């Protein structure tokens, strides 16, 4: 792809700071909520993009995370449950001079809005989707969500939930996403780096953010956050680097030659050259998908974070705009008088 679509968005005239992106509204999440960290990271990252803030729009659905737009001093819309990707699609496809961000949660994006999410991904609309995944319904006070682990005890599932959860990264890759990443609310540096990569991507970027709900699902990602546990649990994906992790960096990911599947092994001199080198840009989604299946859905052990997949594919908004240009080239600018007259008329003389 030639020029970044970011170049269609006007640049800020002056240097911006984090303060420029804070609205005058009081932030009303629960004290200790992971959303605060994500908000701070986004507000802190925006000046780096250097875009005119009037050309930035945050669109959200319903849920705790969907209050996000109110706290950004940009244009914003807090819409209805699950529909943010659809609304943002209309905005992004009609206004390519805007940088459009969607803020959503696991219930909003994967349950009531699952249809819109997968279709935005397959179309590759130029949207940056931040999916706050806390594996619980917070705003409705604690029912299980489509990412909750099987058997979860909640108010609506006193005997344990029955549903198998979605893995958002697997889902997105299956839905033809061109950019899929995962990060964690408390890792500001990693979160910012992933935002940077998402912002640079032309097309739909889905960023799953593991976010702690300290009221209804506290510690859901503790295995990935506790310093000691994290070393064994988290696999940091870096494009072009061998996929290795562990307290002693002694674990690695290899491909099982028999099944083609991926597995975690202890690195030895014998197998070191078999350690998979991460290639986020490879056209085939197969390995990215296999990586998304490494984590244990219950314990979250062996959870890869970082950019799973980042590939180039024509962007829907661009294709739509090209068709309009092409139509003008072929038919000339629309002439209303000629359109209304058609070519099968008769005249009544007065």
């Amino acid at each position, binding site marked *: 792809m030639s020029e970044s679509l970011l170049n269609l968005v006007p640049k800020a005239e002056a240097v911006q700071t984090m303060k420029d992106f804070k609205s005058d*509204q009081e932030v009303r999440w629960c004290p200790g909520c992971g959303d605060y960290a994500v908000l701070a990271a986004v507000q802190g990252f925006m000046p780096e993009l250097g875009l005119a803030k009037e050309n930035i729009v945050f669109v959200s659905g319903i849920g705790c995370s969907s209050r996000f737009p109110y706290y950004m001093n940009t244009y914003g819309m807090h819409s209805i449950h699950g529909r943010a990707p659809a609304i943002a699609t209309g905005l992004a496809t009609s206004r390519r001079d805007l940088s459009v961000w969607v803020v959503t949660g696991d219930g909003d994006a994967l349950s009531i809005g699952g249809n819109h999410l997968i279709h935005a991904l397959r179309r590759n609309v130029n949207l940056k989707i931040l999916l706050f995944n806390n594996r619980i319904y917070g705003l409705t006070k604690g029912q299980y969500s489509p990412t909750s682990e099987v058997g979860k005890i909640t108010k609506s599932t006193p005997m344990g939930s029955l549903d198998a959860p979605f893995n958002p990264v697997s889902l997105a890759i299956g839905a033809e996403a061109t950019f899929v990443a995962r990060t964690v609310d408390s890792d500001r540096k990693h979160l910012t780096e992933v935002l940077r990569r998402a912002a640079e991507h032309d097309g739909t970027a889905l960023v799953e953010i593991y976010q702690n709900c300290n009221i209804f699902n506290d510690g859901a990602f503790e295995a990935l956050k506790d310093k000691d546990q994290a070393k064994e649990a988290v696999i940091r994906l870096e494009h072009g680097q061998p996929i290795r992790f562990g307290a002693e960096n002694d674990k690695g990911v290899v491909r099982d030659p028999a099944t083609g599947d991926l597995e975690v092994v202890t690195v030895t001199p014998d197998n070191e050259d078999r350690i998979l080198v991460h290639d986020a840009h490879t056209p085939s989604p197969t390995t990215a998908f296999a990586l998304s299946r490494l984590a244990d859905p219950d314990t979250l052990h062996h959870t890869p974070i970082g950019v799973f997949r980042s590939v180039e594919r024509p962007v829907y908004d661009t294709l739509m705009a090209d068709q309009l240009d092409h139509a003008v080239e072929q038919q000339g600018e629309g002439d209303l*008088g000629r359109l209304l*007259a058609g070519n099968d008329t008769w005249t009544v003389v007065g």
Partner: protein
Amino acid sequence: MTSQVSSEAGEALLGEQRSAPAEARPGAEKEVRRLDRVIIRFAGDSGDGMQLTGDRFTSETASFGNDLSTLPNFPAEIRAPAGTLPGVSSFQLHFADHDILTPGDAPDVLVAMNPAALKANIADVPRGGEIIVNTDEFAKRAMAKVGYATSPLEDGSLDGYRVHPVPLTTLTIEALKEFGLSRKEAERSKNMFALGLLSWMYHRPTEGTEAFLRSKFAKKPQIAEANVAAFRAGWNFGETTEDFAVSYEVAPATRAFPAGTYRNISGNLALSYGLIAAATQAGLPLYLGSYPITPASDILHELSRHKNFGVRTFQAEDEIAGIGAALGAAFGGSLAVTTTSGPGVALKSETIGLAVSLELPLLVVDIQRGGPSTGLPTKTEQADLLQAMYGRNGEAPLPVVAPKTPADCFDAALEAARIALTYRTPVFLLSDGYLANGSEPWRIPETGSLPDLTTAFATGPNHTLADGTEVFWPYKRDPETLARPWAVPGTPGLEHRIGGIEKQDGTGNISYDPANHDLMVRTRQAKIDGITVPDLEVDDPDGADTLVLGWGSTYGPITAAVRRVRREGGHIAQAHLRHLNPFPKNLGEVLARYGKVVVPEMNLGQLATLVRAQYLVDARSHTQVNGMPFKAEQLAAALKEAIDE
């Protein structure tokens, strides 16, 4: 193709384009009778091409200068089982030398391409009517399939009619034998043979159809020429065979039309053009978010063809995404539209409520069809009025506009856009299947005569705080219209957030304050109630005591019925509502003038309910929900009954 019709002395000046070929001029030796109007119904199997045949006859008739009105009627199945009653597709056309209002109650001529078509339609043909049957299809098995134990062509059951038995299939195959087509391929042109025969019978111009066939089959010239040959063979058959002793002339309806340039247009096409015109007049890009649904899909198809007007069409994953994308585009400053039918409206309801709360311009086009649920997808109904009025959670008022004829869909679309843009509100445009697919002549408007719909986006602060700071308040209203400013992303300094949660008056910030909510609910209602709409006009030449009040597509049948009543000496006043919300300011006063108010509707009395509730008048409902428009004669009888009561 252009032809000229002069209104002088009511005589047709036959332009050369529409005279028949000299060697085949009809009636050269046969009797020619003059008629003032004719109703023809083409009926056949879903695969027989009856809609195309009807469309072509309509085009010929339009270019000849008759007034006309059409009623396509087809099954929801793309190809119902061949030769069955549910598979029958028909097209009725009424044309005249004077202005007419409906596709006609009963056909004067029925063209039946098979036994099923005859059986399904014969009850509508009055005794003495003409029936042209394709005898080739009247084999024992085909007749048995629809329950004919004996052949209706031989058992005397059609004795009261003027029957023309024509072996259409055989004649078509015979006419095309030089083309080297298979029997099956040749057979397909039998509808063009029938069209040629009918074109001869009614002196229709033929060049348009021949040009149409050559363009439609441009990539298959052999098929194009075969169809033209079948069409001409049908014409010549009429000219030469003794069975057709008479042909008919229906003079152009010169007096019915004011001077101008005309074309024939269907409701969905007129509505599409109205949307493009509205965007042009507003100076805004048009954005359609839509999901395919009968009978609205034609608008999506049509708008998709006009990208050179800057029209963006987005075929969404579902109805909700269709309106969602439109609403997003509205936020960005487009003239945004979603098109659907009743079931789609049900799915869009929550987003319509959001649009009411966001106070953004948005057109919701509902091409009503039979309901509830999937109902009758290809048939007409007016039963979404209350859904449009009230089908949302909370107090969510919005304007409702309804076109009255196919061509009027153009003006109604412009009017709906005017209201949406002026008052920053979603607007319902309620068309229906009858208007959508029906067609009539349309005087093509001068683009200079179209309304100016230019609207201004907010560009700077609109409020001064106590400390003198200039700020932008997204919910500070225009004192006249109560509309809020439309501040589109990309405008520096006006960054703001809007949403579905209740907003503080003025600032637009989230507010749960009880008094503020009460104020906002009442303000949103007051904004819609205060929309300026033209007064209702009443047609009452005789000082009648009974008023017939209609809305939407019943205009044609009601007006035709009113004419019948008056012709027979009855006194009746007529008024027709374009604006269902808000009602015209004078509606209450108009209703109060009459002792009796009759409200015919293709539902169970939805407008009557609204009128009774709002004006405490004893409105009488006259309803029909059979998927078809009212018949003028039946409606006239109902009106007479009301008058005489």
